[in-house]
């Protein structure tokens, strides 16, 4: 194995010097270049760098936190960067019960995330209302599209890890399997509704105040 590595190093040196003959060049290209489709490469990159939103709802959030801690270490798979704004996140973990008062807020956060985006309903409450099966709680499926449900009350961090790896596999194979289009879950991003109105407020050059300054 080591000799093999040494041989490849020497061949690379020879190629840079222009000493290689055609058959050897062809062999080297065969060995060192991998071909794939752009879609696959992009999905591979996306699936290995999911940024979850920093968003905890209830007790499941504690398990979610321990998933990124040292023992399970979600950083191994590239999920450790919890983003503090939905604009930078592409995974929303519903970690806990969703009350009917919180549901519009969560829907808005989900809409503020930019495509491509995914959602995990973690625990019994956000999937099926769990022990809080009463007038105050609403299951996540009723107001937003959910890709993966992780059962448990709360799920162990390993279970959430398993859910995220399932999601990773799903993204690599087929990002949404077409169900987003079927359920009207596409194109929900909340962009600035009226750019002219907000231009002055967010101090963008081109707004009236911006030009004056």
């Amino acid at each position, binding site marked *: 194995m080591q000799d093999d590595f040494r041989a490849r190093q020497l061949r690379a040196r020879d190629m840079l010097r222009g000493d290689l003959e055609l058959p050897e060049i062809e062999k080297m290209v065969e060995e060192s270049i991998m071909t794939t489709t752009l879609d696959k490469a992009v999905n591979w990159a996306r699936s290995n760098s999911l940024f979850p939103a920093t968003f905890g709802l209830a007790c499941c959030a504690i398990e979610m936190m321990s998933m990124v801690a040292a023992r399970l270490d979600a950083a191994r798979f590239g999920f450790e960067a919890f983003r503090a704004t939905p604009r930078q996140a592409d995974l929303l973990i519903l970690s806990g019960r969703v009350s009917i008062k919180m549901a519009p807020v969560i829907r808005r956060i989900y809409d503020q995330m930019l495509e491509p985006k995914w959602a995990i309903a973690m625990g019994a409450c956000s999937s099926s209302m769990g022990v809080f099966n009463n007038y105050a709680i609403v*299951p996540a499926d009723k107001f937003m599209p959910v890709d993966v449900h992780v059962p448990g009350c709360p799920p162990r961090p390993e279970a959430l890890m398993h859910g995220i790896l399932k999601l990773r596999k799903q993204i690599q194979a087929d990002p949404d399997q077409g169900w987003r289009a079927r359920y009207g879950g596409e194109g929900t991003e909340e962009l600035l509704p009226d750019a002219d109105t907000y231009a002055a407020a967010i101090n963008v050059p081109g707004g009236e105040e911006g030009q004056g300054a």
Partner: protein
Amino acid sequence: MPDATGLELIANDLRDQDDDGVLATVFFREKAMLIVNAPFVPTALEHLRAMGYSFMASVHGVDYFPEEPRLGVHYELLDMHAVDRITVKTRVHTEDPHVPSASIAWPTANHQEREIYDMFGVIFDDHPDLRRILMPDDYEGYPQRRDFPVGGEPVLFTHNETKSPGWWH
């Protein structure tokens, strides 16, 4: 706690102020309770505050369904120096659930009365800001009343099955 005699003395003092104010006294498991008419609640609370019960620990709502009057409001008072507690209770009908608000004299009652209004529909007169506090503003009904449907989704438990469907094996 005031003992049974002490409770009767307090009740007598209150009856001097209003004959119909105090409906009953209950001394149960070392706990003293005054049951008063709804309009008399602020007077009773002020009298107890002057006696030293100056800390309002809690305000609860209760639904006594199917008894009438159905809705109850409990005020738990605490004397921090004597470490002494007393409870003031009142009952109102669901058709006319009006209780004078205690939140002007006792600011801690503000949110707790809002919660009772939210969950049981008791209306606290002269409350500075009587809105729903836990449920959304456009919510209809009072969810903690006992005739309110529990809601939620039906759940299929295995013990509801007449014979084994076999899906859990």
